[in-house]
């Protein structure tokens, strides 16, 4: 039972950063923009969140700071892509390269600094229930926030007019423009949201997952989040599923020894990357499914006429 609880807790902590980043990217992509800079935004969120908690001592401040950092990175991307008509793929790559460099620069003084990790929110009474209480009601605030965001994004996309407009812009920016919707404004907001979510996803790594700062500590999670969006066929519910599935793979990584599996640690570390490739292959095989589900304007440039 102990191992099971520990495993589930591992899944949750491994899934949460992916969930944040993938949810943000899903909203961005639904608006028709492919931002490949998730890794760069996450790593900036990680360092800024860590530095903020170090200097302010407040986890809340740190979370907002990481959102701001991610959104600021996204804003650079948004301006380049939406205003300067830069092509989306290289701009996203540039954002990642820049983010990794800048976070390393900013993080120079943070190497070796210790932090206890953000506090867990014990919900009174029910958190004392054995097993269930530990798993569901004694998590830190970010875990609850990530689950809340799943439902918030789902509601926004399917139930609100703003969500409808966002989907419309991603489906056909020309038609949306012809109807008088401001394609660039809507896309910019979606890009900013994606950045903020990636930022907080990164902060989860440096504040909760392993509370310290290491260069490039996101270790490709931004890219895995991108793959998750494809895996989810751009559906919010399936992002939740996908993130927790990937979280599941990390149990193997962290608990392999406890489970008595004698495989070199490097091989274990390869698992998430190999799993990502496998998942991509399985999902992408069906071209027509991708074509029907992917936002039709994804990655295409738009030049507003007025």
């Amino acid at each position, binding site marked *: 039972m102990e191992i099971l609880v520990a495993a589930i807790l591992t899944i949750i902590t491994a899934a949460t950063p992916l969930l944040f980043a993938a949810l943000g990217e899903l909203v961005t992509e639904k608006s028709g923009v492919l931002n*490949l800079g998730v890794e760069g935004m996450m790593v900036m969120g990680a360092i800024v969140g860590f530095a903020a908690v170090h200097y302010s001592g407040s986890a809340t401040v740190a979370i907002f700071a990481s959102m701001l950092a991610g959104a600021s990175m996204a804003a*650079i991307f948004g301006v*380049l892509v939406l205003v*300067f*008509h*830069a*092509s989306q*793929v*290289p*701009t996203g*790559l*540039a*954002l990642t*390269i*820049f*983010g*990794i*460099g*800048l976070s*390393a*620069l900013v993080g*120079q003084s943070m190497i070796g600094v210790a932090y206890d990790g953000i506090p867990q929110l014990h919900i009174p009474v029910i958190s004392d229930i054995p097993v269930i209480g530990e798993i569901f009601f004694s998590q830190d605030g970010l875990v609850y926030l990530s689950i809340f965001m799943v439902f918030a994004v789902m509601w926004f996309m399917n139930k609100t007019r703003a969500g409808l407009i966002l989907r419309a812009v991603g489906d*056909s920016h*020309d*038609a949306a423009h*012809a109807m008088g919707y401001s394609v660039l404004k809507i896309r910019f907001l979606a890009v900013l949201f994606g950045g903020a979510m990636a930022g907080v996803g990164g902060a989860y790594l440096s504040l909760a997952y392993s509370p310290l700062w290491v*260069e490039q500590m996101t*270790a*490709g999670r931004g*890219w*895995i989040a*991108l*793959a998750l969006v*494809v895996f989810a066929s751009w559906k919010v519910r399936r992002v939740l599923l996908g993130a927790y599935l990937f979280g599941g793979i990390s149990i193997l990584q962290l608990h392999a020894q406890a489970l008595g599996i004698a495989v*070199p640690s*490097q*091989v274990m*570390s*390869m698992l998430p*990357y*190999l799993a*990502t*490739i496998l998942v*991509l*292959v399985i999902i*992408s*095989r069906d*071209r027509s499914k*991708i074509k029907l589900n992917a936002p039709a304007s994804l990655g295409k440039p738009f*030049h*507003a*006429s*007025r």
Partner: protein
Amino acid sequence: MLPRLIKRQSPSKAMVYLSPILALLLTLLASIVLFLIMGVSPSGALHAFFVEPISSIYGLTELMVKATPLILIGVALSLGFRAGVWNIGAEGQLILGGLFGGATALFFYEKTGFYIIPLILIMGALGGIIWAGIVAFLKTRFNANEILTSLMLSYVAALLLNLLIHGPLKDPDGFNFPESRLFSDSALLPILYDGTRLHLGAVIALFFVGIGWILLSRTLLGYQIKVMGDAPAAGEHAGFSHSKIIWTTLLISGGAAGLAGAIEVSGPIGQLLPNISPGYGFAAIIVAYVGRLHPLGVLFAALLLALSYLGGETAQMKLNLPVAVTGVFQGLLLFFLLACDVLIQYKIRTSKKSESTIAPAVKSSIKSTSEVK
């Protein structure tokens, strides 16, 4: 009145070449600001970064040593990017090349012979080709996004190298350090200029520029690459095979990156280490763009980016600046380049003349509506 972007009738050829220069100037300006924020004298820092490293013959040869892998990979990536094939996992292909080349060198540790070096290079290229071949297979067979698969394979490659260096390739007399033996002399690339590290790889890289140039500008394959990048459907209309282009460009870039990896381990490094590249595979993406996806441009861009590596090292030694400045500089350069590239297709107007601002609107709406069907 806010400046507006007006679409040009046809793209500006001058801006294609001016944009990288403009971007470099803006990057330098931004670096000055960055140095000021960090409390370093900008003139001193810029001197340490861009002048000092190349003010000696040795410095110039070092520049070429650093530029060699960037040229090889940059030229090859340019081909792929032109075709719209986004191999961004050149870092992993480089590592595999280093691994294959290095393993070959270690295998012939006791032997001497002229054949060893060519074999190392061939094996290195083969390693990169295998790694990129996986990407091509997954892309053409399963439609799996090559950006994500090639990148994931880079992480796998780094772990694989790490695993083998901790295991079978570890130096038996190395006190358990995770590194291989130093290669024997017959596995080291010949030095071109005594007293420096300038090696045969530089010649190979320059040769590669020429090959790439001819391939891109004068051969049917180069033409097919350009057509696939601009209009895949037109390529199909002409009877060109999209998968053939995906395979070819990926195998070329994999081979070039693998070759670069083998050159690195049998050239300046001389052994296998857990870390055989300071991100050449990623920097080469910037090199390809700054070089306008043209082999000759790549040559200049590679020298510039090589300078940023050398400068980063010098600035670290002289001014105690973190090496990460190099990454920031490279990222900024690509940002500014992408921003400046807008001037190729558009011009800036600040006047309020409404008719000229609506004209492109009509054009683009005509274009877009004709695509609605």
